[in-house]
């Protein structure tokens, strides 16, 4: 990866057209123990759209926040137009012509578009003349780039796509020459995404440089000139888009990891224990995240849901486990529909025979200030002791047994849970949820942040549950994990199940493509599980894309 630099320098000394707008050299950034960026080198040519792809947590957003001056790198240098700068804060970055459109918009909801645009870039202490001048400028920008928007509209009333245009206007108003967009289409409807890409095309035509962070390969293929791949905090490779393919990128993104072999016999599926019908779930802001999902999980089988994080998996898990009200649809456990309402729905789900290993153990699965034994009964507190008193010795006995069986170390019942390692915390959660003999187990990211030794143990426990005739729903962003554990794979994309695959025959690259919204249509699908409408994002992208060279042919 360090080999990139000389090449780029050679290029920059050549034609002016390929001069570097941005060059990052040896960037490192830690968040506590997490090494988010490891010695990153990146060169972005002026007047191009440069894509940065990678899985969630690969370090893309951190890298761009450093470029934008929102975070400060631990080490490394930033060159803008060939000159090294120490970017100390966002104001500095803006002065250097770097603008950023964040994944979560940095807008003030109860301000007008105009007020949001000028915020921090006011040219006088008086607001009225500032706003009047900005109004004219805004009109010009809107005309030049097709960013049409009512300057007096209240931002909170705008659609997400319009809000994003406000963010772009904000950057352009400040004279941004380089524009960073962090996962810009994650929140957009297909039509809005379509519009965004047209705008980006215009910006490029006007000579602006665009850095596009995404995990959707289709977008990369559609609009970028060059693409850099990041994985686990490292820069893997930078390629001209024309010389690569989604297959190749998917491989670079996911990496050729050693497939963990899990010893398991063939599944013997029994009767249906978990049934999900036309499930629609919204997030906290009312945006639909699960859009009409159907599937069944039978006794004695593991159904894996593969997908890139943020495609509705979390909401799906939270809904089935009773934590989040479903907007419509039905969830049946053992044939009985779950009635989820109020803020104690998870209790009813547990009573129905469902256990839940949550995706994020620290946020949800554990009270980190509790001692180990207290967390060993979380969710089952009412079954320890008759009457109001908590039967602490029974709880401690159970905890002791769990910790012994699952080899949780240190085997200290009174240690604060925050002080256990990630793997041991996870084993504690798994023990709690598995040892109570549930009919249905839903598991989210069972091995996230867990060391290798514990991974194998956790996988074996899940298989054991299956062989004991339980229905298991597994959600993981780790494709290896899905492939090695599941008996059936469902691929989720944009809140919908877009395909089903047999783990024995499915090809990793193929799955990776489907997870990123490519090729949704040449996958053998179970008609029963496929939603009625196809994923339109792909189609619109394909139609507008000038240089897409892959997915389109398959139509």
């Amino acid at each position: 990866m360090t080999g990139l630099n000389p090449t780029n320098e050679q290029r920059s000394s050549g034609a002016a057209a390929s001069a570097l707008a941005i060059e990052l050299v040896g960037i490192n950034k830690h968040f506590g123990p997490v090494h988010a960026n490891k010695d990153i080198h990146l060169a972005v040519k002026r007047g191009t759209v440069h894509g940065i792809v990678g899985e969630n947590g690969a370090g893309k957003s951190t890298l761009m926040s450093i470029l934008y001056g929102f975070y400060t790198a631990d080490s490394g240098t930033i060159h803008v137009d060939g000159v090294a700068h120490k970017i100390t804060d966002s104001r500095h970055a803006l002065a250097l012509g770097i603008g950023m459109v964040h994944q979560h918009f940095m807008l003030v909801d109860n301000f007008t578009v105009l007020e949001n645009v000028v915020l921090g870039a006011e040219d006088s202490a008086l607001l009225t003349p500032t706003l009047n001048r900005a109004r004219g400028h805004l009109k010009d920008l809107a005309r030049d780039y097709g960013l049409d928007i009512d300057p007096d509209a209240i931002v909170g009333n705008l659609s997400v796509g319009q809000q994003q245009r406000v963010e772009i206007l904000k950057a352009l108003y400040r004279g941004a020459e380089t524009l960073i967009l962090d996962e810009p289409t994650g929140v957009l409807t297909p039509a809005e995404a379509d519009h965004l890409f047209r705008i980006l095309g215009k910006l490029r035509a006007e000579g602006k440089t665009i850095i596009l962070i995404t995990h959707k390969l289709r977008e990369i293929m559609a609009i970028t000139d060059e693409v850099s791949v990041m994985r686990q905090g490292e820069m893997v490779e930078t390629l001209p888009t024309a010389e690569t393919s989604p297959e190749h990128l998917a491989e670079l993104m996911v990496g050729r990891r050693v497939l963990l072999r899990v010893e398991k016999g063939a599944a013997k599926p029994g009767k249906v224990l978990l049934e999900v019908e036309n499930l629609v779930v919204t997030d906290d802001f009312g945006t639909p995240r699960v859009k009409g999902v159907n599937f069944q999980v039978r006794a004695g089988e593991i159904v894996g849901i593969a997908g890139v994080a943020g495609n509705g998996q979390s909401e799906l898990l939270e809904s089935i486990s009773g934590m989040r009200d479903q907007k419509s649809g039905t969830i049946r456990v053992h044939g009985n529909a779950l009635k989820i309402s109020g803020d104690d729905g998870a209790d009813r789900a547990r009573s129905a025979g469902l256990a839940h290993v949550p995706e994020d153990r620290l946020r949800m699965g554990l009270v980190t200030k509790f001692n180990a034994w207290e967390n060993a009964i979380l969710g089952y507190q009412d079954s320890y002791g008759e009457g109001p008193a908590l039967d602490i010795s029974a709880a401690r006995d159970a905890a002791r047994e769990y910790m012994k069986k699952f080899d949780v170390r240190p085997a200290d019942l009174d240690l604060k849970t925050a002080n256990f390692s990630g793997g041991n915390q996870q084993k504690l959660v798994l023990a709690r949820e598995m040892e109570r003999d549930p009919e249905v187990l839903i598991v989210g990211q069972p091995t996230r942040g867990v060391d290798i030794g514990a991974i194998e143990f956790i996988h074996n426990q899940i298989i054991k549950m299956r062989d004991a005739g339980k229905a298991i729903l597994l959600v993981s962003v780790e494709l290896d994990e899905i492939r090695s554990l599941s008996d059936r794979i469902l691929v989720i994309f944009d809140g919908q199940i877009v395909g089903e695959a047999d783990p024995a025959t499915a090809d990793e690259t193929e799955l990776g493509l489907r997870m990123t919204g490519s090729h949704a249509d040449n996958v053998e699908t179970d008609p029963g599980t496929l939603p009625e409408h196809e994923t339109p994002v792909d189609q619109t992208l394909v139609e507008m894309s000038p240089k897409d060279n892959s997915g389109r042919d398959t139509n």
Partner: protein
Amino acid sequence: MTPLPRWADVVLLPFLNVALAFLIGGLIVLSVGQNPLQAVGIMLYGAFGYGSGFGYTLYYTTDFIFAGLAVSLAYHAGLFNIGPEGQAYVGGLGVILIGLALNGMHWALVFPLMIVCGALFGAAWAFVPGYLQAKRGSHVVITTIMFNFIAVSMMGYIISRILKPEGVNSDESAPLDAITRVPQLRSFIELFKNSPVNLTFFLAIGALFLVYWLIWRTKFGYKVRAVGNNPVAARYAGISTQKTIMVIMALAGAFAAMVAVNNVGGVQGRLILNFVNGAGFVGIAVAFMGKGHPIGVGLSALLFGMLYQGGQELAFQMPGITREMIVTIQALVILFTGAMGDMMRGPLSRMFFQPDAPAGDK
């Protein structure tokens, strides 16, 4: 930041915070040309040096334990209850109503009923902010402040216009017969001379044990702590946050109301205007200083009992110092243990882990 060892977290840090509060308090005393050490000596003597002083210390301690528990209980559920002052005041209505209804009967019968009736009134008064927080999202801090003021007006009206008997000049209810009042300890123990400490003191000690049991030994307490520490995990565990908030606020109000049993039932024997006299607010400092744990609350309440009684003595002996110095200490304690409780965590953590700093990074 590297976590501190348990003992440092539980004992050292709070101790340093309290010490800082007292240090600054001492500097303030020094700044007006008084000797803080002499003041401490006088206060200690006033609080513990003779029987009636000690009795008064325990009397104040009784109030502060209940008020401290009322704040602590809510705090375990992540709520800041600023309302014990008003809850105790309204609780006084319950105490006097049952007392007057059964006036003339033996205290052994009336005392438990005063507890129940006072608790019901205090609970009802605290339940409303709890309900509004749980169901309507109104912030319990603001509503409990408002409810303190509303209690002042409401009780003022009830006392002066309804409970005040004909021909009495001051605003107060009819008195309870001596036999109906909660007996003061001086009638059993010579030592306490003419101090007001009464049987309610033992109720306070019992309340400390009860709260310990409730919070750490029951399913409900488990749920309260889960809600207070991690509401998302509580939801995951199927615990209703709304229900928990409403119940714990009502309970907090019930405990606050025991201040009324102490004063209305055991000391004044009648309902007088503004009898709570700030005890509810002292509970805030007591709860933060005691970190919400009954042992801590008991000790902090004793400390503040000592300060209040010793402060009385101080005002006599050192005219340059008023009892309000105690309110200043109270404020500093809240500031350093509550608002800036983590101020010294950083330096302390660095002190502990300096020698093997690289290891701390992992």
